[in-house]
Each structure stands twice: as structure tokens, then as C-alpha cells.
């Protein structure tokens, strides 16, 4: 017996929507380019500003996707980046370990920090955002104490990388690394059991447990992968900037503000487009938007953030227009 497919009010058109998004992104960037009188999309501006400035928020956003995707909203990631990058710089410069210290330390430090947040949340049974904020304060304090001690012994609180250790932050190496990370993230997130399980436990922990997914194991694996990606972002960031100052009072949150915006845009568009691709597009768009606003003389730190906030809201509203499920 042949049965007919049932009708639904909502018809999924992923390919159409994806093309629509791409066209929209290109149109917006071209409009911005035209408004700047052809300055924005010059090769020099793209390679010196737009793409390099997209690297850090985009890579952090990929890391956040793994962590936030499990339902753990961890706001200590900015503090982890500062701590990991600085310890990497200390080992590279003060301990003389060079690239070995610069690369290995951020990965180890950020994985440990992230697992601390996970364990606080899981075993102390407190909401992830509270665990994240608490741990974030601790991570910041550790870095502040370290730099204060360093300023007494080495004469300077800020560790600055030597030019020979900053290759990873330069064009085109940073963008090539971003592309490699994108491919890995895309495959893990969309094409492995790890990615599927993390999205399942973030989507519905009850159902996930009922179908036999080990929630705690999936959470820890996702946190480790997310932390490794954030570690890569920390290395790219300090390599580009040369140094990162310690912060306190949760000022580290501002380090990841753009990455948070990129993550929110990617997550809000997830019924249209896979999050890793959405984050890549959003990262480039956010970088382009800030570059556009800077060229137009819009004041940084106030109006630029207002416009970015509006973009995040618009993306969220557009993406949820046809969604019947629960918007998270």
C-alpha cells in the first residue's frame, strides 16, 4: 500500500534559505562598500582589517557553540582567554619555551578552566551561568595576582610577545588557521556522534537520556572540544595583538562581546543554516560592520555596539518567524 506524505503548514526549504542568507550577506556588504565610497572592499582593507578582525570572534564563537550547545552558558570564556593567552606568553617569553609554551599552555589552561566550570555546574548543581561568572572572577583574580607579582620582579605587568613569536597572528596565516579550524569544527559539529549528542542534550536533556545518551559524558567531551577551540582563539589573539592585559571585575566579558554576538546570530539562524557556517558568515559580517562604522566615523564603544545589538535582535526575530518549537 502506498501512503501519501502528510501535509505540514511549515515547509522546510533549507537550500533556498541558505542561498537567501548568502545573497543577503553579500548585498549588505556591497551596500556598505558603496556607502564608504569603495573603501571597504579594497584588497588592503580586507586583508589588513576585515578578515584578521573576524578571526578571533569567529573562532571563539565556534568554541562557544560546543559549550553553549550543551545548555551550559559559560560567561567565563573571556577570562579563560586572558589567562590562557598570558600563561602561554609567560612560558614563551619568561620561561624561554618559545612556540612550545605559547601553543601548549593556552590549550591546557583553558581546558582545565572549562572543566572547572563544568564540574561546578554539574556537581554543585548550580546554573551554568552562575558557575561561569564565579569561575570567571577567580580566573581574572589569578591573572591579576600573577601580573602584580610579575611587575615587582620583572618590572612590567604586561607580557609582550617578541616579533618572532607573532607569526600565527599575521595575515594570511591567521586566516588559513581559521579555515582549517572551520573545516574541523564543521565536521565534528555536524558529522560526528559527539556533535549530534551535544546538540541533543542541549535541545532536550530528558529525551536524550531516554534514548541512552550519557549526558554527563557528552557534556564533558563538548566542553573539552570547545575549550581547545577557544584555546586556539587565545593563541591567535595574543599572536595578533602581542599582549593582552589582565582584567578584573568581569571586564573580561568585553573581550568576548563580539564573539557572543556572532554566537547568538549563528544560533538564532540554526533552523536555516548549520551553526559553524552561520558563525563564519556572522563573524565576517560583524567584522565588516565594525569596519564600515569605523570608516564612517561612528564612535567605537557606544553606537557601534548599539548597531551590533540591533543586528543580533533582527537575526533572532527573522529566524524564529516560522519556528513552532520552543525558542531557546
Amino acid at each position, binding site marked *: 500500500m502506498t501512503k501519501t506524505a*502528510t*501535509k505540514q503548514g511549515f515547509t522546510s526549504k533549507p537550500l533556498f534559505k541558505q542561498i537567501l542568507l548568502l545573497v543577503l550577506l553579500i548585498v549588505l556588504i556591497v551596500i556598505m562598500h558603496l556607502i564608504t565610497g569603495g573603501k571597504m572592499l579594497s584588497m588592503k582593507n580586507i586583508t589588513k582589517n576585515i578578515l584578521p578582525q573576524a578571526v578571533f570572534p569567529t573562532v571563539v564563537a565556534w568554541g562557544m557553540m560546543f559549550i553553549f550547545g550543551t545548555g551550559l552558558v559559560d560567561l567565563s570564556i573571556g577570562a579563560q582567554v586572558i589567562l590562557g593567552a598570558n600563561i602561554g606568553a609567560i612560558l614563551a617569553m619568561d620561561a624561554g619555551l618559545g612556540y612550545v609554551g605559547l601553543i601548549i599552555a593556552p590549550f591546557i589552561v583553558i581546558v582545565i578552566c572549562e572543566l572547572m566550570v563544568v564540574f561546578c555546574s554539574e556537581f554543585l548543581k548550580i546554573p551554568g551561568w552562575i558557575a561561569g561568572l564565579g569561575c570567571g572572577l577567580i580566573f581574572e583574580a589569578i591573572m591579576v595576582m600573577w601580573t602584580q607579582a610579575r611587575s615587582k620582579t620583572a618590572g612590567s605587568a604586561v607580557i609582550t610577545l617578541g616579533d618572532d613569536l607573532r607569526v600565527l597572528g599575521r595575515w594570511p596565516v591567521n586566516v588559513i588557521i581559521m579555515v582549517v579550524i572551520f573545516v574541523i569544527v564543521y565536521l565534528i559539529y555536524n558529522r560526528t556522534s559527539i556533535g549530534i549528542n551535544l546538540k541533543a542534550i542541549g535541545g532536550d536533556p530528558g529525551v536524550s537520556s*531516554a*534514548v541512552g545518551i550519557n549526558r554527563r559524558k557528552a557534556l564533558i567531551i563538548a566542553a573539552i572540544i570547545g575549550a581547545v577551540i577557544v584555546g586556539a582563539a587565545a593563541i591567535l589573539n595574543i599572536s595578533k595583538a602581542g599582549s593582552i592585559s589582565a582584567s578584573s571585575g568581569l571586564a573580561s566579558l568585553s573581550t568576548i562581546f563580539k564573539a557572543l554576538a556572532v554566537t547568538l546570530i549563528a544560533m538564532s539562524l540554526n533552523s536555516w543554516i548549520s551553526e559553524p557556517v552561520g558563525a563564519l558568515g556572522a563573524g565576517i559580517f560583524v567584522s565588516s560592520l565594525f569596519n564600515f562604522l569605523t570608516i564612517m566615523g561612528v564612535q567605537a564603544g557606544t553606537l557601534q555596539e548599539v548597531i551590533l545589538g540591533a543586528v543580533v535582535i533582527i537575526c533572532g526575530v527573522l529566524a524564529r518567524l516560522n519556528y513552532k*518549537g520552543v525558542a531557546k
Partner: protein
Amino acid sequence: MADIVLKTEHLCKFFGATKANNDLNLEIPRGAVLGLAGENGSGKSTLASMICGIQKPTSGKMYLNGQEYAPSNPVDANEHHVAMVLQELGVVGPLDPVTNMFLGRTGKFKSGPLVSLSGMKKEAEATFEKWNLTKVPLTGVAGNMSIENRKVLELARALSIDPKFLILDEISQALSHDNRKMLYKFIEHFTSPEVGGTILMVTHDLEEMMEICTHISVLRDGQIIDTRPTSEYSMDELKRLMIGREVSGDYYRADREEMYQQDVVLKVEHLTVPGELNDISFDLHKGEILGVCGLSDGGIHSVGPALFGLSEHRKGNIIYVPANRQLKGPKDMIQTNGAYLSKDRDADGLMLDASIGQNISVPNVRLLTQGPLKFLSPARVNKLANKASVDFEIKSSGLGQVVKSLSGGNKQKVNLSRWLVQDLEYVILDCPTRGVDIGVKAYIYGVMKQMKEKGIAIILISDELPEAMGMSDRLLVMKDHEMAGMLSRTTDFIEDKIIEVML
């Protein structure tokens, strides 16, 4: 001697002092469809969840095909070819339907480190084909699927493990007429000697149980009261065993007349929601029960949200006639003493993590405030919540109990009571008896009859034709999202005639 597939010996499951299952001894023969009958909270779902590895017994043993069986989790149960379709909706909304089908088992499709998405899709389609299930859209995200399609998807997920023992917990309550027929055919095929499957079925639809099941076990207060072949039970005896007292056999309306007042409460003109409803018009009278029925995806479950103003891009007019007021959204409905109970009570009706008291008081805030600043009066809140709890016989440890922890029937009582404690003029009920036992069902029908006598107008949207026929004055039959006919209780309520209009 019968070939026993599953056997339980002194099986117990305690939650603190609560004995959800107490000393269960059960033998299920191969090829049987064993129905578990019992009131809400009698322990049916607990037994099912232990068999499929979601919960572990406190004591006692289970045997599967003669071997001791103690599944550590659902995947372990699946590896023993035991699968289950859960009572509550069990899909992960943000994931696509194909991934949902193989959640927890995606490793099976690994090609190197990666999961083969095309392999999963192929197997999903093959499962639908193999078992002749109604095809549901496999693209997009599961959260956008209708409840019915999600249930079919869950059935497909259970079948994708190639089960030999299948537990169906309240599945048919989410299905409409044609998909129920599909389910019954599937059950017949699955338990045939060629396939050799066995089914444990939990359903509150006793007519369905008597028709489908080969054997019935009755549970009461966590214990098995009786197990016999279905042919040895009469409907009245089954009800009596379940409830522990006599229950009237005829709980629908006894009259055969279309009876209501001439005053129109709601006038619906050309109600249209693109892709969901097309040009629906009717009048709802005081004291009328207007049934809405149709085949699956015929659009009946779009009527409630559209009337209540929850659907986007709604067109047409909904007029509250006594005040000649155009109703544009939920606020207008509530201000004109209207109410709406959705089909999916967990997602759209109740606040599951809130207490019974909070759930009851939220829709009634305007009745509970006092003074010019509209402060919420704790005394009024408690009084109203207590009244609702007593009037609707909600079984709980108190008004502070979290709704999530209640049984299905008690959740529905909370859902109903929170609206019905008000002085309503009209109410839209979408599948009000979904997932509730015979006692609660009889109770809800009793409430509806009382409301009708008081002159309250009711729109009863139902997947169950006997329910719609048994309670309605008129039946609005829908087909392909349009109105196919309006039938009268006096002249047209013949099942074949209604089905003819549906088709």
C-alpha cells in the same frame, strides 16, 4: 506451554515511600498484545520504563526469552531488541527528524570518524517503507512537526532497532482516525507469526484496548489486580477493576438531539491561516458543544490556535456577538470570558516547573488582584487554587507540588481547572481527554455537560470520533484544511456518514 517472551518476578519500584510498582508478577506470551489498564498513577508507565531501561527496579527480576534481563539503559534494552514509544513527546526539537530517529545510536552509521548522514536517511526511509508507516517529512527540524507526525516519527525510531518486544505508551492518543488505523494494521502485522513480535500497550482508550489487545493486565495502586485474555473481560468489569468501583458504562451524552440556545456567542467568518486553514465560518451558540473532527493533518488542530489568536497571519473575523466585539488575540478572548486548552498540554498549556498553585493562579490574575495598584492577594490566590484543587479532585501532596511530577490525568485536571474555575462564556477544548484514564475522562465529560447546562459554549476539537459524536450538538468536519460539512446530532451522527464527509 506458551512461549513466554517477558516475565517479571516480584518486581518493585519505590520512590521514597511511594510504591509505584509493588510485587509485579507478569508473563507475556510471544505474539501477544498485552494491554495495561489502570488509572493515572497506577504504575503502568513505571513498569514500561523499567522494561526499557529508563528506570531500574528497586527489587525483583525480569526475564527476557528465559534469560535474566536487567537493562542498564535504553541502549542496552535496544540491544536486547526491546524498544519503547514514550507517553510524553520524545523528540529533540532543534534536530532534524532523521537524526532524531537514530539518537544514541549514530555510531552505527560511522564511516571513519564521521557519521554518514545519507546512510541514516536511507535507513530512516527504509524503516518507514518496511513497516508501512505514514510518511512524515524528514527535512527541517523536528520542533516544527505536528504532534501527530512526531509520534509517528517516535514509532519509526523504536522500529529502527528491529525490536522483538515493543512498548507503546499512550501512542494512539496523539493520533487521528487514519493514523490510528495505520497503527492497528501495524500492530497486527508486528505480532503476526511471520514477524513474531510482542507488544505491551498502555492506553486509556478501553474500547481500543478491548479491540486490539489479546490479553489485559489491570493495575491498581502499583499492583497487578488481574491478568486474563481480553475475551474474558466485559467493558464494565474492566472499568470496575481499574477504578475499584462501578463506573457508568455510558459517559457520553444520553440524548440524541441538537440542543442549545438561539443566542450566538461567537461568529467566525472566513477564518484563514495560510497553509493551515482555509475559509472556515460558523456560529457558536450558548450552551452548544460544537465538535470539530477530521482526518490527520486535515487542519482540526489549527482551529484552536487560530481562534485564540495564536496563529500568525490569521485572516477573517471572529466576533464576540454579545458585545459585537472583534476578537484579535488571547487578551480579547480572556476579556470576553473565553478560554483555550491546547492539545499539547505540556508544551503549550502548563508551566511544568511551577507549582499547581502557580499554574492555577496565572490565568486568573485579574480575579486575584485587589486595590488601585492591583496587588496580588495571597489569600485570594490560595482560596482559588484550593477551590480548583478540590473541585477537580487533583491528587497531589499539596498546592506547592510541581506540576511536572503529577501523572498525566492530574496534569490535565490542573490544565482544565485553571480555566474552568472562572465564569466562562465559551471555551475551546483541543483533545481534553488525551492521556487521561477512564475515571478522569468520565469526570471531564461530566464537567462539559454541566457547562452546557449553564449555557457555556464549547468548541470540542477531537481526534476521537466516538468522543466527538458522543458529546457534540453539531460536528464541523474538516478535510484538507477546509470545512467539509456541518452535521447535526439530530439527523447526521452516523459514523459511516461522518467518515464519508471526512474522506
